[in-house]
């Protein structure tokens, strides 16, 4: 079970390790889109986009809609939901930065004090 979960995560991470695929995910977050619609803003050929879509599909991050002709891709929100508390994660990364900065400022203050004594 744990191993399967780990493999799923590997697939998600691998899928999101590419900037085009992240952009596709971001685009689909605002609604489903056909391959043609997705290819447009990226100045990529449809086959190239399809390759990226396959990777995202395998990771379970996107699926195909009902419309047979357009075959719109849509985001699997559930799949992403747990992994995407974006704002919170963003906050945490910066908080880690700022905690290091707290420590550094303490050092700098101590140095200044030492310098003033001289």
């Amino acid at each position, binding site marked *: 079970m744990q191993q399967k979960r780990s493999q799923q995560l590997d697939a998600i991470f691998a899928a999101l390790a590419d900037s085009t695929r*992240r952009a596709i995910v971001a685009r689909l977050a605002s609604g489903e889109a056909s391959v043609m619609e997705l290819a447009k803003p990226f100045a990529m050929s449809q086959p190239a986009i399809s390759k990226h879509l396959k990777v995202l599909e395998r990771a379970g991050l996107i699926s195909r809609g009902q419309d047979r002709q357009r075959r719109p891709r849509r985001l699997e929100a559930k799949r992403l939901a747990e*992994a995407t508390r974006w*704002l919170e994660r963003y906050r945490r990364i910066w908080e880690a*930065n700022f905690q290091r900065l*707290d420590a550094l400022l303490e050092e*700098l203050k101590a140095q200044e004090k030492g310098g003033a004594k001289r």
Partner: protein
Amino acid sequence: MNEAGTAKASVNQGETTMKNASTFKVTTPSDKEIQMTRVFDAPRPLVKDAFSKPELLKKWLLGPPGWEMVVCNVATKPGDRFRYEWRNTETGHQFGTGGVAREISPGRVVHTEVMDGAPSESLVTTDFVEEGGKTTVTMTLLFESKEHRDMALKSGMEHGVAASYNRLEELLTSGPA
């Protein structure tokens, strides 16, 4: 308006108690902005130094665990370009960001910024306000559109793909909220 300042700090079990954590806020004041506010227990000149000197920046501006800052070219006057790059010590992945300084004064720094892989630039305004020996830093990131703003928020992934693996796994295994 979204706010993550009070969001689930308890998700991460191994997390140590965060000093000053309650003074740190990340908000989205508009569709195109991200704003961060944090109070530091130091006078403004020291905080400004820490934000502008490469030898100091390299000590704290690192992102998730496992990343080191390998390029830190700062801007010293308006019109100067800056460029920061990080490298994951385990995977060797590299990630960078850069832009042009617009304004540099004691209380404010304004620069444009494009993260690697980002579709457009953002305008970053950092304000430094000192009161009673403490300095409040407010960073406001203005993007071209909501989509671009959201992508930037998600770029925590960019940095974190390898490094925040464990953290994400904890989130995933903690189940639906």
